């Protein structure tokens, strides 16, 4: 049973991004560009050939080759925009590759999202049938599994209620329940586990490992390294559309975690690293400093940690908030904090004028446990636009020398290491 079920050869996908990718193409545009093109060709031939590669063409994937043997649970990791989703979309036949080929042996079930095609006006029961059919299940198959799906979703009493009246938790549970009962030979999963509460996530993970243990082939994309470690045997790492590493999962995760960090306690952004959509927000630098104000890679857990983000606004932004996420190396969140978390500050700074800024804060002493951490940054206007984010902007190490409990030379569980005031009373 060592045959290959997925064979990908030199796969590539090109996207055209226009000057305004948000706009729909209209007949007028086509007519206008039809008229313009001959002139542009003239211009191009007269000027140098430098720009002929086309600045508005991007390769989301390029030269990807790999194969997956039957029964393998394979992880795919990479930063945002590395091409993970595009790869899954090609393998699940949602979109066509621009070059290369992929050969797939067997029925593919893709979970790029849960609840695809759910209609708010239809009842839970009706949506189970509809969603099942969209995912490629036969009616008899859905009928056979109906009770199981309902039991898994825990929405029995509301099964004949339109799903628009469901809480978001119920909606997700029902949606995942349908998807979880799909029985394809190859399952393609994208990050669906990142939604919902902890209980729901636990249930999803359980179902995922069942699928894996039943000997089916699974491709699993996630940002959550502990999920990748738990579920997959082998992992490929994508970066900027290329496959850069393939190894047993633990090695691949280490590679992914170590790659791309300067390790100097400072991250600088060059203009080509900043996507166009970020404008007018321009990140410049993210630094961690120790108590003496030095930019360092290793900080002590017993001392405060100073975090500063330097940026430029080319135009005023209404409602802008700039913040950090702190994550463990495994991708689990420790906390989130924004520079306008204080409501009175938030009231005062409704519009942030253009200019050069530093937003800085201090993580108090005795907060973090020893280990390596990742800072992610986010600049957004709530519910309006996310200008910029980098989910792995900077990594730093925390050293716990002198921290509470250090008299015992054992690793402590958990991401935080607070100095709690214990009182021992003899009664």
């Amino acid at each position, binding site marked *: 049973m060592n045959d290959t079920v997925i064979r990908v050869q030199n796969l590539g996908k090109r996207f055209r991004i226009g000057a305004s990718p948000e706009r729909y193409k*209209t007949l007028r545009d086509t007519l206008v560009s039809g008229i313009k093109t001959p002139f542009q060709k003239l211009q191009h031939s007269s000027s140098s050939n430098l720009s002929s590669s086309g600045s508005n063409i991007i390769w989301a994937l390029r030269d990807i080759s790999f194969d997956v043997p039957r029964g393998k649970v394979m992880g795919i990791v990479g930063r945002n925009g590395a091409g993970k989703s595009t790869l899954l979309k090609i*393998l699940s036949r949602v979109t066509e590759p621009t070059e290369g*080929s992929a050969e*797939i042996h*067997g029925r593919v079930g893709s979970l790029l999202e849960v609840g*695809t095609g759910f*209609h708010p*006006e239809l009842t839970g029961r009706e949506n189970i049938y509809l969603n099942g059919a969209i995912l490629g299940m036969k009616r008899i198959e859905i009928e056979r599994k109906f009770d199981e799906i309902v039991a898994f979703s825990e929405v029995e009493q509301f099964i004949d209620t339109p799903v628009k009246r469901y809480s978001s938790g119920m909606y997700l549970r029902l949606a995942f329940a349908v998807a979880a009962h799909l029985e394809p030979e190859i399952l393609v999963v994208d990050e669906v586990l990142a939604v919902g509460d902890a209980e729901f996530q636990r249930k999803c993970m359980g179902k995922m490992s069942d699928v894996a243990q039943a000997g089916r082939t699974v491709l699993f994309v996630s940002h959550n390294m502990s999920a990748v470690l738990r579920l997959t045997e082998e992992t490929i790492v994508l970066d900027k559309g290329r496959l850069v590493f393939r190894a047993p999962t633990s090695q691949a995760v280490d590679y992914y975690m170590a790659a791309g960090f300067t390790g100097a306690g400072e991250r600088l952004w060059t203009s080509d690293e900043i996507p166009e959509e970020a404008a007018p927000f321009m990140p410049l630098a993210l630094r961690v400093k120790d108590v003496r104000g030095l930019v360092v890679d290793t900080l002590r857990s017993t001392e405060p940690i100073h975090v500063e983000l330097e940026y430029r606004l080319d135009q005023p932004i209404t409602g802008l908030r700039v913040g950090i996420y702190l994550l463990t190396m495994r991708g689990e969140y420790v906390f989130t904090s924004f520079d306008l978390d204080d409501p009175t500050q938030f009231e005062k700074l409704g519009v942030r004028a253009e200019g050069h800024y530093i937003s800085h804060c201090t993580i108090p002493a005795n907060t973090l446990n020893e280990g390596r951490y990742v800072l992610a940054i986010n600049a957004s206007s709530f519910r309006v636009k996310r200008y910029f984010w980098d989910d792995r902007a900077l990594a730093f190490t925390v050293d716990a020398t002198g921290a509470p409990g250090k008299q015992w030379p054992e690793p402590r569980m958990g991401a935080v290491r607070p100095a709690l005031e214990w009182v021992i009373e003899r009664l």
Partner: protein
Amino acid sequence: MTSDQLTNSPRDVIILKPSRGLAALNLRDLWTYRELVLFLSWRDVLVRYKQTVLGAAWAIIQPIVQMVVFTLIFSKAAGLSSEGVPYPIFNYTALLPWGLFSKAMNDAGRSLVNNRNMITKVYFPRLTIPVASVLAGMVDFGIAFLVYIGIILYYNLAPNSTYTYTVTPALLTLPLFIILALVATLGVSLWFSAANVIYRDVGHMLPFLTQIWFFLTPIVYSSSEVSGKWQIIYALNPLTGVVEGFRWSLLGIHSLPLPLLFVSAGVAVVILITGVIYFRNMERTFADEI
């Protein structure tokens, strides 16, 4: 162990690569997903009258109100002839296929864009979406047909009515004209739905295109009003043949204008075939463009 179940038969192998030239029509795929077509049209029908007070009664009210309005304007006010049949019957016979066509064209034309969330997330033959829209229109057609029978009965049983409905052997050909109506409807729907993905102008065009098309089709008037030399050009509208066929088959009035019918039917078939080809060719970029 389920390994036996998992053993591949060769037909399960899928090769994904950039398609070149005219995409293979691959209609077998559509057949595999026939249940999805039914589910999608069932959804469209189910959702259409949710949260309305009158519910499915709308499917009856709409054509009747249309017919009454047209009768008042075109028969009473404009005095158009109706070839010896009471004008409401004459008009309603044409409204049957026209209702199917106009509703399906508008629904199907927007169907891909309305279902974009599915198209960008899951694979299934994209043809299922417009086909399901057209099929959902058949439900309303069925209801409208029941109303039609009611109208005929009324005109025959009402005490002061002078009209008697006579069944002719031509009635047996009705299924053929229904199929012709579906061919024309599906063809036009495929063109518009695929074009609407790339050019949203289509969505804006549909309402007034429907109106213009309505007057280019012999619904409120008879095709015999169109003078001889224009007849063939007039027949390029596939709906002309459909409507004339319906009147001939259901009402048995005048003889069937065969040249006109053949031109219309030919155009309908050409639109369907080119529609399928155009659709399949555009399909590969749907997920990226929508």
